[in-house]
């Protein structure tokens, strides 16, 4: 199991909070596990809510080429990296 970085932990907490995942502990989210499908089992409604939460907290607008939504959300690590890269 790979440890979460400090920023990844912050994003993990945002995920748990914004999606009401009360049964999941933010620390338990594996940085490289897929957030959707098999991992946390999130779906497109979650993706929208999470996108909104990310925009509100970090002022980052999530963008994706057609059908590449899953790449941005492919893991906690990729989402955290995306936010970090796009934060001025």
């Amino acid at each position, binding site marked *: 199991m790979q440890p979460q970085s400090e920023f990844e932990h912050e994003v993990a907490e945002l995920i748990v909070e914004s*999606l*009401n*995942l*009360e*049964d*999941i*502990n933010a620390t338990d989210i594996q940085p490289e596990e897929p957030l959707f*499908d098999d991992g946390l*089992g*999130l*779906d*497109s*409604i979650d*993706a*929208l*809510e999470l*996108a*909104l939460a990310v*925009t509100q907290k970090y002022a980052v*607008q*999530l*963008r*994706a080429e*057609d*059908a590449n*939504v899953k790449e941005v959300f492919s893991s906690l690590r990729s989402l955290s990296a995306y936010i970090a890269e796009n934060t001025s």
Partner: protein
Amino acid sequence: MPSSQRSHVITSRGLDEIIAHGRDGEVSVAQFLARAVALAGKLPDHRYAINLAADRYDFFLGFCAAVIAGQCTLMPSNRQQQTVQQVADDFADCYLLGDVSMDGIERFDVDSDSLATITPSVDIPEIPLHQLCAIVFTSGSTGRPTPNRKYWKTLVEGALSNAALLMQNQKARLNLLATVPPQHMWGFETSILLPLYSKIAVSHVTPFFPQDIAESLASLSEPRALVSSPAHVSALLGANVAKVKIHRIFSATAPMSAELAGQLEQYFDARVVEIFGCTEAGTMARRNTASESLWQLADAFSLEVGEGRTLVRASHLPEDVELQDRVELAGHKQFRWLGRSQDMVNIAGKRGSLADLNHRLMALPDVIDGVIFLPDEDSKRLAALVVAPGMQASDILEQLKPSIEPAFLPRPIYIVAMLPRQETGKLTREIIVELFEKIRRARAQQDDESPSNQTH
């Protein structure tokens, strides 16, 4: 060209009209038909085409080519490997159309770019009305796809009904953007079938994030139309995107509030038209949600409201469809929606049975008693109260995952000592919700007081 009683033309549009905005710009009906006919001649020789094309124009072209070739298009409810594999297992004589590869299934790429140079066609193919053209799958609570067969007669007459219902007095061509996938019945009807029979040019993109939706809309010329769902459009409002005039916003898949409809109309200078329908019957009614609460039934449909159930009839449907909703007739061709049938829930555009979900919860070895329910009509997610000594909520969640479609996984799950059943064993909704709210409030209070949570 008139259609005979046994067949119907694939499109009633004029050859010079624009039917799509592809990757390389506008596509006329003549160009589109020529490419579809050419593609039809190249398709692998199988009965079923699983169309997973992500680009809407590729999906459109692939679907029409399959129809012309006499093949049936299969539309899985999502692109997950497991779902597609189940469909392929049930319909073995199939191939994959589009940009997704899967072990053991033949794949064919639409490659619409290579078709772009074909000379435009003047022939409009006629399709037999009895031809099986599409099978739409609903996922249900278990994720096991349930097939729904669509014959050409149903698709064409449904599209003509929708043209009358949705395109009233619409003279100028609408440039349409859809945020819902073409494989979903709502997206299929509005962004694929409707442009074949009414003045619509559909965009090839399917943007997801608010900023992308706003930019895709802005890139289309007026008048614009948006086909979407309440979740997508409320995110669009919430993200404060740049204003763009949208002539029509068509919404379905979940109920929309008059308040949201009103805000959308104001922000985008739009008219919001909400659609009522289901996979089995297709679009059957509309309302202008900002100002109307009653639904207007399309001329082609009739409703029979009886003891505890409602039947939908239309001459183009192979059989009557039982609605999973409670409705009340109100005047000529109008009805009021009272709610879903007690047992049915709709989560993230997917329909599931509470009885079935509860059966699966109770089947878990560690669960002594439990109930899955929708906390209130507006809830986006299900919740559960479970009696399972020694177990954590996360254990129950893990155990439910293999047998329940992710959208229906309850969140939160609260472990309780017992359920407040009446002497007869009956569990009323009011009592369940009351207990749930009590626990939720207690936890919120706990969180507020807990020092570890003072970090933000």
